[in-house]
Protein backbone atom coordinates (compact mmCIF):
# COMPACT_ATOMS: atom_id res chain seq x y z
CA UNK A 1 0.00 0.00 0.00
CA UNK A 2 1.77 3.00 -1.25
CA UNK A 3 -0.18 5.70 0.49
CA UNK A 4 0.71 4.33 3.87
CA UNK A 5 4.36 5.10 3.60
CA UNK A 6 5.55 8.60 4.25
CA UNK A 7 7.87 9.90 1.65
CA UNK A 8 10.27 12.04 3.56
CA UNK A 9 10.95 15.19 1.67
CA UNK A 10 14.52 16.24 1.82
CA UNK A 11 14.04 19.90 1.23
CA UNK A 12 11.35 22.03 2.72
CA UNK A 13 9.53 22.49 -0.58
CA UNK A 14 6.90 19.97 -1.26
CA UNK A 15 6.41 18.02 -4.42
CA UNK A 16 4.35 20.55 -6.31
CA UNK A 17 2.74 18.71 -9.14
CA UNK A 18 2.01 15.37 -7.64
CA UNK A 19 -1.24 13.95 -8.95
CA UNK A 20 -1.37 10.87 -6.77
CA UNK A 21 -3.47 11.87 -3.80
CA UNK A 22 -2.61 10.68 -0.32
CA UNK A 23 -5.32 9.88 2.18
CA UNK A 24 -4.36 13.03 4.09
CA UNK A 25 -5.03 15.14 1.01
CA UNK A 26 -8.24 13.24 0.35
CA UNK A 27 -9.57 14.31 3.75
CA UNK A 28 -8.09 17.80 3.54
CA UNK A 29 -9.95 18.64 0.34
CA UNK A 30 -13.52 18.05 1.61
CA UNK A 31 -12.59 20.01 4.74
CA UNK A 32 -11.37 22.89 2.56
CA UNK A 33 -14.57 22.80 0.53
CA UNK A 34 -16.55 22.85 3.78
CA UNK A 35 -14.59 25.89 4.92
CA UNK A 36 -15.32 27.65 1.63
CA UNK A 37 -18.97 27.00 2.14
CA UNK A 38 -19.12 28.07 5.77
CA UNK A 39 -16.95 31.15 5.20
CA UNK A 40 -19.21 32.24 2.36
CA UNK A 41 -22.32 31.76 4.47
CA UNK A 42 -20.62 33.63 7.31
CA UNK A 43 -19.79 36.61 5.07
CA UNK A 44 -23.36 36.65 3.81
CA UNK A 45 -24.67 36.50 7.37
CA UNK A 46 -22.59 39.53 8.32
CA UNK A 47 -23.74 41.27 5.12
CA UNK A 48 -20.16 41.90 4.11
CA UNK A 49 -19.52 43.05 0.54
CA UNK A 50 -17.25 40.01 0.11
CA UNK A 51 -17.65 36.32 -0.70
CA UNK A 52 -14.78 34.69 1.23
CA UNK A 53 -15.86 31.59 -0.68
CA UNK A 54 -12.33 30.66 -1.69
CA UNK A 55 -10.71 30.75 1.76
CA UNK A 56 -10.64 26.95 2.06
CA UNK A 57 -9.17 26.62 -1.43
CA UNK A 58 -6.36 29.03 -0.49
CA UNK A 59 -5.57 27.08 2.66
CA UNK A 60 -5.66 23.71 0.88
CA UNK A 61 -3.16 25.06 -1.68
CA UNK A 62 -0.93 26.40 1.05
CA UNK A 63 -1.02 23.20 3.06
CA UNK A 64 -0.90 20.55 0.35
CA UNK A 65 0.15 22.22 -2.89
CA UNK A 66 -1.53 23.48 -6.05
CA UNK A 67 -3.08 20.15 -7.05
CA UNK A 68 -4.98 19.90 -3.78
CA UNK A 69 -6.05 23.52 -4.12
CA UNK A 70 -7.20 23.03 -7.69
CA UNK A 71 -9.24 19.95 -6.78
CA UNK A 72 -10.77 21.78 -3.80
CA UNK A 73 -11.78 24.61 -6.07
CA UNK A 74 -13.22 22.25 -8.64
CA UNK A 75 -15.22 20.18 -6.17
CA UNK A 76 -16.34 23.33 -4.41
CA UNK A 77 -18.08 24.65 -7.51
CA UNK A 78 -19.42 21.27 -8.56
CA UNK A 79 -21.03 20.68 -5.17
CA UNK A 80 -22.22 24.26 -4.99
CA UNK A 81 -23.65 23.97 -8.47
CA UNK A 82 -25.40 20.70 -7.80
CA UNK A 83 -26.92 21.78 -4.52
CA UNK A 84 -27.51 25.52 -4.60
CA UNK A 85 -26.79 27.53 -7.68
CA UNK A 86 -26.52 25.44 -10.88
CA UNK A 87 -24.78 28.06 -12.97
CA UNK A 88 -21.83 28.30 -10.57
CA UNK A 89 -20.73 24.86 -11.82
CA UNK A 90 -19.32 26.63 -14.85
CA UNK A 91 -17.07 28.80 -12.70
CA UNK A 92 -15.23 25.71 -11.46
CA UNK A 93 -12.61 26.59 -14.08
CA UNK A 94 -11.92 29.85 -12.25
CA UNK A 95 -11.69 28.04 -8.92
CA UNK A 96 -9.23 25.53 -10.32
CA UNK A 97 -7.04 28.38 -11.55
CA UNK A 98 -7.18 30.15 -8.19
CA UNK A 99 -6.09 26.93 -6.46
CA UNK A 100 -3.15 26.51 -8.82
CA UNK A 101 -1.99 30.14 -8.65
CA UNK A 102 -2.17 30.26 -4.85
CA UNK A 103 -0.21 27.01 -4.60
CA UNK A 104 2.51 28.16 -6.95
CA UNK A 105 2.81 31.61 -5.37
CA UNK A 106 2.93 30.11 -1.89
CA UNK A 107 5.64 27.71 -2.97
CA UNK A 108 7.72 30.51 -4.42
CA UNK A 109 7.53 32.36 -1.11
CA UNK A 110 4.95 34.94 -2.14
CA UNK A 111 2.94 34.43 1.00
CA UNK A 112 5.81 35.02 3.39
CA UNK A 113 5.24 38.65 4.31
CA UNK A 114 2.35 41.09 4.37
CA UNK A 115 3.83 43.08 1.47
CA UNK A 116 4.28 40.04 -0.72
CA UNK A 117 0.75 38.86 0.05
CA UNK A 118 -0.53 42.02 -1.56
CA UNK A 119 1.31 41.30 -4.80
CA UNK A 120 0.02 37.73 -4.71
CA UNK A 121 -3.52 38.91 -4.17
CA UNK A 122 -3.34 41.11 -7.25
CA UNK A 123 -2.00 38.26 -9.35
CA UNK A 124 -4.74 35.97 -8.06
CA UNK A 125 -7.43 38.56 -8.78
CA UNK A 126 -6.01 39.04 -12.26
CA UNK A 127 -6.10 35.30 -12.96
CA UNK A 128 -9.60 35.02 -11.62
CA UNK A 129 -10.84 37.96 -13.68
CA UNK A 130 -9.17 36.78 -16.89
CA UNK A 131 -10.84 33.39 -16.64
CA UNK A 132 -14.21 34.57 -15.36
CA UNK A 133 -14.70 37.30 -17.96
CA UNK A 134 -15.39 34.99 -20.95
CA UNK A 135 -17.74 32.95 -18.77
CA UNK A 136 -19.56 36.12 -17.73
CA UNK A 137 -19.87 37.14 -21.35
CA UNK A 138 -21.11 33.75 -22.51
CA UNK A 139 -23.61 33.19 -19.73
CA UNK A 140 -24.58 36.64 -18.52
CA UNK A 141 -23.74 38.95 -21.38
CA UNK A 142 -20.82 40.22 -19.32
CA UNK A 143 -22.44 40.86 -15.96
CA UNK A 144 -21.27 39.55 -12.59
CA UNK A 145 -24.53 39.72 -10.70
CA UNK A 146 -23.22 42.08 -8.04
CA UNK A 147 -25.35 45.24 -8.36
CA UNK A 148 -22.72 47.95 -8.03
CA UNK A 149 -20.20 46.08 -10.17
CA UNK A 150 -22.88 45.72 -12.80
CA UNK A 151 -23.67 49.42 -12.54
CA UNK A 152 -20.07 50.14 -13.59
CA UNK A 153 -20.46 47.59 -16.38
CA UNK A 154 -23.69 49.22 -17.61
CA UNK A 155 -22.10 52.65 -17.48
CA UNK A 156 -19.14 51.49 -19.53
CA UNK A 157 -21.05 49.74 -22.30
CA UNK A 158 -23.50 52.66 -22.28
CA UNK A 159 -20.49 54.71 -23.32
CA UNK A 160 -19.71 52.23 -26.10
CA UNK A 161 -16.72 50.72 -24.44
CA UNK A 162 -15.98 47.20 -25.68
CA UNK A 163 -18.03 44.57 -23.82
CA UNK A 164 -14.90 42.54 -22.98
CA UNK A 165 -13.19 45.49 -21.37
CA UNK A 166 -16.34 46.47 -19.52
CA UNK A 167 -16.95 42.95 -18.30
CA UNK A 168 -13.32 42.54 -17.26
CA UNK A 169 -13.41 45.80 -15.31
CA UNK A 170 -16.60 44.75 -13.54
CA UNK A 171 -15.13 41.38 -12.59
CA UNK A 172 -11.65 42.66 -11.70
CA UNK A 173 -12.87 45.36 -9.34
CA UNK A 174 -14.94 42.83 -7.42
CA UNK A 175 -12.18 40.26 -7.52
CA UNK A 176 -9.49 42.56 -6.24
CA UNK A 177 -11.47 43.38 -3.10
CA UNK A 178 -12.40 39.81 -2.39
CA UNK A 179 -9.04 38.25 -3.21
CA UNK A 180 -7.02 40.78 -1.22
CA UNK A 181 -9.14 40.23 1.88
CA UNK A 182 -9.13 36.45 1.48
CA UNK A 183 -5.36 36.43 0.86
CA UNK A 184 -4.75 38.34 4.10
CA UNK A 185 -7.15 36.20 6.09
CA UNK A 186 -5.49 33.06 4.74
CA UNK A 187 -2.05 34.53 5.51
CA UNK A 188 -3.00 35.27 9.13
CA UNK A 189 -4.71 31.96 9.67
CA UNK A 190 -1.80 30.03 8.19
CA UNK A 191 0.57 31.80 10.57
CA UNK A 192 -1.61 30.70 13.45
CA UNK A 193 -1.77 27.02 12.45
CA UNK A 194 0.16 24.75 14.78
CA UNK A 195 3.40 23.47 13.26
CA UNK A 196 2.34 19.85 13.74
CA UNK A 197 -0.62 20.46 11.45
CA UNK A 198 1.49 22.01 8.68
CA UNK A 199 3.97 19.15 8.97
CA UNK A 200 1.31 16.49 8.86
CA UNK A 201 -0.05 17.63 5.52
CA UNK A 202 3.44 18.18 4.17
CA UNK A 203 4.62 14.73 5.23
CA UNK A 204 1.58 12.96 3.90
CA UNK A 205 1.41 14.14 0.35
Amino acid at each position, binding site marked *: *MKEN*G*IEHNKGNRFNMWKIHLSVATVTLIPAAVGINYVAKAFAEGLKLPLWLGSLGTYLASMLAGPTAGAISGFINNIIYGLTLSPVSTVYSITSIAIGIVVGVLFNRGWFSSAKRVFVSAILIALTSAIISTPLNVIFWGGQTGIPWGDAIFAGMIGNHINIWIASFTDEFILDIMDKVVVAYIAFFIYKQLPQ*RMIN*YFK*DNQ
Partner: protein
Amino acid sequence: MANNQQVSLTHLSFTYRHDHDAVLHDITASAPLNSIVGIIGNYNAGKTTLCRILAGIIPNMMAGNLQGDVQIGALSPTQNWSDFNQQTGFVLQDPSSQLSGLADTVADEIAFDLLNHGVDEAAIQQRVVDVAAQLQLTAQLGQSPVSLSGGQLQRLAITTAIVTRPTILLLDDPTSEMDPQGREAFFTWLKTIKDATIFIVSNEIDDLCEIADRLWVLDNGELVSQGTPAEVINSLNSDWQIGTPKVYQLARLMDWTMPDDNNQFPVTVDQLRRCADDDHSNQSSQVSISHQ
Protein backbone atom coordinates in the same frame (compact mmCIF):
# COMPACT_ATOMS: atom_id res chain seq x y z
CA MET B 1 14.52 -12.41 19.69
CA ALA B 2 11.36 -11.10 21.25
CA ASN B 3 8.97 -13.51 22.87
CA ASN B 4 6.06 -14.23 20.56
CA GLN B 5 3.65 -14.57 23.44
CA GLN B 6 4.24 -11.12 24.81
CA VAL B 7 3.82 -7.46 24.25
CA SER B 8 7.28 -5.99 24.38
CA LEU B 9 8.56 -2.50 23.93
CA THR B 10 12.33 -2.22 23.79
CA HIS B 11 14.23 1.04 24.18
CA LEU B 12 11.52 3.03 22.48
CA SER B 13 12.27 6.72 21.94
CA PHE B 14 10.50 9.23 19.78
CA THR B 15 10.80 12.87 18.78
CA TYR B 16 8.23 14.60 16.56
CA ARG B 17 9.60 16.41 13.57
CA HIS B 18 8.19 19.74 14.73
CA ASP B 19 9.71 19.34 18.19
CA HIS B 20 13.21 19.53 19.58
CA ASP B 21 12.58 17.45 22.67
CA ALA B 22 11.88 13.76 22.72
CA VAL B 23 8.32 12.87 23.71
CA LEU B 24 9.24 9.33 24.72
CA HIS B 25 12.59 8.35 26.23
CA ASP B 26 13.91 4.83 26.14
CA ILE B 27 10.75 2.96 27.08
CA THR B 28 11.08 -0.72 27.82
CA ALA B 29 7.95 -2.48 28.95
CA SER B 30 6.17 -5.77 28.65
CA ALA B 31 2.82 -7.42 29.25
CA PRO B 32 1.33 -10.81 28.46
CA LEU B 33 -0.76 -11.16 25.29
CA ASN B 34 -4.53 -11.00 25.68
CA SER B 35 -4.28 -8.86 28.78
CA ILE B 36 -5.60 -5.39 29.46
CA VAL B 37 -2.87 -2.79 29.80
CA GLY B 38 -3.86 0.52 31.35
CA ILE B 39 -1.64 3.45 30.42
CA ILE B 40 -1.73 6.32 32.90
CA GLY B 41 0.05 9.59 33.34
CA ASN B 42 -0.63 13.27 33.01
CA TYR B 43 -0.88 15.29 29.84
CA ASN B 44 2.44 15.76 28.14
CA ALA B 45 3.51 12.43 29.62
CA GLY B 46 3.45 10.83 26.17
CA LYS B 47 0.38 8.57 26.44
CA THR B 48 -1.14 9.55 23.10
CA THR B 49 2.23 9.31 21.37
CA LEU B 50 2.72 5.83 22.78
CA CYS B 51 -0.72 4.86 21.48
CA ARG B 52 0.19 6.20 18.06
CA ILE B 53 3.30 4.05 17.99
CA LEU B 54 1.37 1.00 19.17
CA ALA B 55 -1.10 1.57 16.32
CA GLY B 56 1.60 2.24 13.74
CA ILE B 57 0.36 5.79 13.11
CA ILE B 58 3.93 6.68 13.98
CA PRO B 59 5.98 6.17 11.84
CA ASN B 60 3.58 5.34 8.99
CA MET B 61 1.57 8.57 9.02
CA MET B 62 3.42 10.93 11.32
CA ALA B 63 7.08 11.59 10.88
CA GLY B 64 9.78 11.90 13.44
CA ASN B 65 12.78 10.17 14.88
CA LEU B 66 11.72 6.75 16.16
CA GLN B 67 14.13 4.38 17.81
CA GLY B 68 13.65 1.01 19.42
CA ASP B 69 11.21 -1.76 18.70
CA VAL B 70 7.62 -2.76 19.40
CA GLN B 71 6.46 -6.34 19.21
CA ILE B 72 2.93 -7.45 19.96
CA GLY B 73 2.94 -11.21 19.72
CA ALA B 74 4.23 -12.06 16.26
CA LEU B 75 3.28 -8.65 14.88
CA SER B 76 5.02 -5.33 14.83
CA PRO B 77 3.35 -2.02 14.02
CA THR B 78 6.61 -0.44 12.99
CA GLN B 79 7.85 -3.19 10.69
CA ASN B 80 4.92 -4.69 8.81
CA TRP B 81 2.14 -2.28 9.44
CA SER B 82 -0.21 -3.62 6.80
CA ASP B 83 -0.49 -7.07 8.41
CA PHE B 84 -0.55 -5.52 11.83
CA ASN B 85 -3.37 -3.16 10.94
CA GLN B 86 -5.59 -6.03 9.85
CA GLN B 87 -5.56 -7.18 13.47
CA THR B 88 -6.05 -3.83 15.15
CA GLY B 89 -8.92 -1.64 16.30
CA PHE B 90 -8.30 1.92 17.43
CA VAL B 91 -10.36 4.58 19.18
CA LEU B 92 -9.06 8.15 18.98
CA GLN B 93 -9.50 10.91 21.52
CA ASP B 94 -11.92 12.95 19.45
CA PRO B 95 -14.66 10.51 18.42
CA SER B 96 -16.48 12.82 16.02
CA SER B 97 -13.42 13.04 13.79
CA GLN B 98 -13.32 9.28 13.63
CA LEU B 99 -16.44 9.07 11.48
CA SER B 100 -15.77 7.91 7.94
CA GLY B 101 -17.46 10.98 6.48
CA LEU B 102 -19.48 8.97 3.98
CA ALA B 103 -22.24 7.24 5.93
CA ASP B 104 -25.94 8.07 6.13
CA THR B 105 -26.62 6.04 9.21
CA VAL B 106 -24.91 4.58 12.23
CA ALA B 107 -25.32 1.16 10.63
CA ASP B 108 -23.51 2.30 7.47
CA GLU B 109 -20.77 3.76 9.63
CA ILE B 110 -20.22 0.47 11.43
CA ALA B 111 -20.35 -1.46 8.15
CA PHE B 112 -17.62 0.76 6.63
CA ASP B 113 -14.73 -1.28 8.03
CA LEU B 114 -16.32 -4.55 6.99
CA LEU B 115 -16.92 -3.31 3.45
CA ASN B 116 -13.28 -2.26 3.28
CA HIS B 117 -12.25 -5.72 4.37
CA GLY B 118 -14.40 -7.28 1.66
CA VAL B 119 -16.88 -9.00 3.98
CA ASP B 120 -20.10 -9.98 2.19
CA GLU B 121 -23.40 -8.26 2.84
CA ALA B 122 -25.11 -11.04 4.81
CA ALA B 123 -22.26 -11.32 7.27
CA ILE B 124 -22.13 -7.53 7.57
CA GLN B 125 -25.78 -7.38 8.66
CA GLN B 126 -25.22 -9.90 11.38
CA ARG B 127 -22.08 -8.33 12.76
CA VAL B 128 -23.40 -4.77 12.68
CA VAL B 129 -26.45 -5.77 14.71
CA ASP B 130 -24.31 -7.76 17.06
CA VAL B 131 -21.75 -5.07 17.95
CA ALA B 132 -24.39 -2.35 18.11
CA ALA B 133 -26.22 -4.40 20.73
CA GLN B 134 -23.02 -4.83 22.74
CA LEU B 135 -22.57 -1.07 23.03
CA GLN B 136 -26.25 -0.18 23.30
CA LEU B 137 -26.57 1.50 19.96
CA THR B 138 -29.35 -0.65 18.54
CA ALA B 139 -31.91 2.13 18.78
CA GLN B 140 -29.58 4.50 16.93
CA LEU B 141 -28.74 2.24 13.96
CA GLY B 142 -30.99 4.15 11.59
CA GLN B 143 -29.96 7.64 12.76
CA SER B 144 -27.42 9.90 11.13
CA PRO B 145 -24.05 9.75 12.92
CA VAL B 146 -24.02 13.56 13.13
CA SER B 147 -27.11 13.52 15.35
CA LEU B 148 -25.45 11.51 18.12
CA SER B 149 -24.37 12.91 21.47
CA GLY B 150 -20.71 12.88 22.49
CA GLY B 151 -21.09 9.72 24.56
CA GLN B 152 -22.96 7.93 21.80
CA LEU B 153 -20.30 8.97 19.30
CA GLN B 154 -17.68 7.45 21.52
CA ARG B 155 -19.61 4.21 21.69
CA LEU B 156 -19.96 4.31 17.90
CA ALA B 157 -16.20 4.76 17.55
CA ILE B 158 -15.73 1.72 19.77
CA THR B 159 -18.11 -0.41 17.71
CA THR B 160 -16.28 0.49 14.51
CA ALA B 161 -13.05 -0.54 16.20
CA ILE B 162 -14.32 -3.93 17.35
CA VAL B 163 -16.50 -4.90 14.42
CA THR B 164 -13.58 -6.40 12.52
CA ARG B 165 -12.83 -8.62 15.56
CA PRO B 166 -9.33 -7.31 16.15
CA THR B 167 -6.87 -9.14 18.34
CA ILE B 168 -5.36 -5.84 19.42
CA LEU B 169 -7.51 -2.98 20.67
CA LEU B 170 -6.15 0.50 21.34
CA LEU B 171 -8.36 2.92 23.24
CA ASP B 172 -7.19 6.49 23.79
CA ASP B 173 -9.37 8.02 26.49
CA PRO B 174 -12.54 6.33 25.18
CA THR B 175 -14.90 7.55 27.90
CA SER B 176 -14.06 11.26 28.06
CA GLU B 177 -17.49 12.32 26.79
CA MET B 178 -19.64 9.62 28.37
CA ASP B 179 -21.82 10.25 31.36
CA PRO B 180 -21.23 8.18 34.52
CA GLN B 181 -23.70 5.43 33.62
CA GLY B 182 -22.26 5.14 30.12
CA ARG B 183 -18.76 4.94 31.55
CA GLU B 184 -19.75 2.28 34.05
CA ALA B 185 -21.44 0.22 31.32
CA PHE B 186 -18.39 0.59 29.08
CA PHE B 187 -15.91 -0.66 31.66
CA THR B 188 -18.18 -3.55 32.59
CA TRP B 189 -18.37 -4.46 28.91
CA LEU B 190 -14.61 -4.09 28.40
CA LYS B 191 -13.95 -6.64 31.10
CA THR B 192 -15.93 -9.24 29.16
CA ILE B 193 -13.69 -9.03 26.08
CA LYS B 194 -11.65 -12.17 25.58
CA ASP B 195 -8.88 -13.05 23.16
CA ALA B 196 -7.69 -9.53 22.58
CA THR B 197 -4.79 -7.51 23.85
CA ILE B 198 -6.21 -4.19 24.99
CA PHE B 199 -4.31 -0.98 25.59
CA ILE B 200 -6.37 1.71 27.25
CA VAL B 201 -5.42 5.27 28.15
CA SER B 202 -7.74 6.79 30.71
CA ASN B 203 -7.91 9.24 33.57
CA GLU B 204 -10.54 7.09 35.29
CA ILE B 205 -8.14 5.51 37.71
CA ASP B 206 -10.87 3.76 39.74
CA ASP B 207 -12.26 1.93 36.73
CA LEU B 208 -8.84 1.27 35.30
CA CYS B 209 -7.68 -0.49 38.46
CA GLU B 210 -10.79 -2.66 38.40
CA ILE B 211 -10.27 -3.95 34.87
CA ALA B 212 -6.58 -3.70 33.99
CA ASP B 213 -4.13 -6.59 34.33
CA ARG B 214 -1.15 -4.28 34.08
CA LEU B 215 -0.59 -0.57 34.46
CA TRP B 216 2.13 1.41 32.75
CA VAL B 217 2.86 4.78 34.27
CA LEU B 218 4.34 7.47 32.08
CA ASP B 219 5.87 10.66 33.38
CA ASN B 220 7.51 13.18 31.06
CA GLY B 221 8.01 10.59 28.37
CA GLU B 222 9.54 8.00 30.64
CA LEU B 223 8.05 4.76 31.82
CA VAL B 224 8.41 5.21 35.55
CA SER B 225 6.47 2.22 36.78
CA GLN B 226 4.82 -0.95 35.51
CA GLY B 227 3.11 -3.89 37.16
CA THR B 228 -0.26 -5.00 38.47
CA PRO B 229 -2.55 -2.15 39.52
CA ALA B 230 -1.93 -2.95 43.18
CA GLU B 231 1.84 -2.90 42.74
CA VAL B 232 1.81 0.30 40.76
CA ILE B 233 -0.62 2.24 42.94
CA ASN B 234 1.15 1.17 46.10
CA SER B 235 4.46 2.44 44.83
CA LEU B 236 3.39 5.76 43.33
CA ASN B 237 5.81 8.60 43.61
CA SER B 238 4.18 11.91 44.49
CA ASP B 239 6.28 13.66 41.83
CA TRP B 240 4.28 11.88 39.13
CA GLN B 241 1.11 13.58 40.36
CA ILE B 242 -1.26 10.73 39.69
CA GLY B 243 -4.58 10.25 41.44
CA THR B 244 -5.34 7.10 43.36
CA PRO B 245 -8.51 4.99 43.34
CA LYS B 246 -11.06 5.56 46.11
CA VAL B 247 -10.64 1.99 47.34
CA TYR B 248 -6.97 2.65 47.93
CA GLN B 249 -7.63 6.01 49.60
CA LEU B 250 -10.14 4.39 51.92
CA ALA B 251 -7.91 1.45 52.73
CA ARG B 252 -5.02 3.75 53.57
CA LEU B 253 -7.14 5.84 55.86
CA MET B 254 -8.53 2.77 57.60
CA ASP B 255 -5.22 0.93 57.41
CA TRP B 256 -6.61 -2.15 55.74
CA THR B 257 -3.82 -4.04 54.04
CA MET B 258 -3.67 -7.26 52.09
CA PRO B 259 -1.61 -9.54 54.33
CA ASP B 260 -0.65 -12.01 51.62
CA ASP B 261 0.49 -9.32 49.24
CA ASN B 262 3.35 -7.72 51.12
CA ASN B 263 0.85 -5.68 53.10
CA GLN B 264 -0.08 -3.66 50.07
CA PHE B 265 -3.22 -1.60 50.17
CA PRO B 266 -6.03 -2.91 47.96
CA VAL B 267 -6.99 -1.07 44.76
CA THR B 268 -10.09 -2.97 43.66
CA VAL B 269 -13.36 -3.70 45.38
CA ASP B 270 -12.59 -7.43 45.39
CA GLN B 271 -9.24 -6.91 47.05
CA LEU B 272 -10.81 -4.60 49.58
CA ARG B 273 -13.46 -7.17 50.35
CA ARG B 274 -10.78 -9.71 51.09
CA CYS B 275 -8.79 -7.60 53.48
CA ALA B 276 -11.87 -6.05 55.01
CA ASP B 277 -13.07 -9.56 55.75
CA ASP B 278 -9.81 -10.13 57.59
CA ASP B 279 -10.08 -6.90 59.43
CA HIS B 280 -13.74 -7.07 60.35
CA SER B 281 -14.11 -10.71 61.24
CA ASN B 282 -13.15 -11.83 64.70
CA GLN B 283 -12.14 -15.19 63.34
CA SER B 284 -8.54 -14.55 62.49
CA SER B 285 -8.29 -18.12 61.30
CA GLN B 286 -10.49 -17.41 58.31
CA VAL B 287 -8.87 -18.66 55.13
CA SER B 288 -8.34 -15.88 52.73
CA ILE B 289 -8.25 -16.57 49.05
CA SER B 290 -4.71 -16.20 47.94
CA HIS B 291 -3.95 -13.80 45.17
CA GLN B 292 -3.58 -15.45 41.74
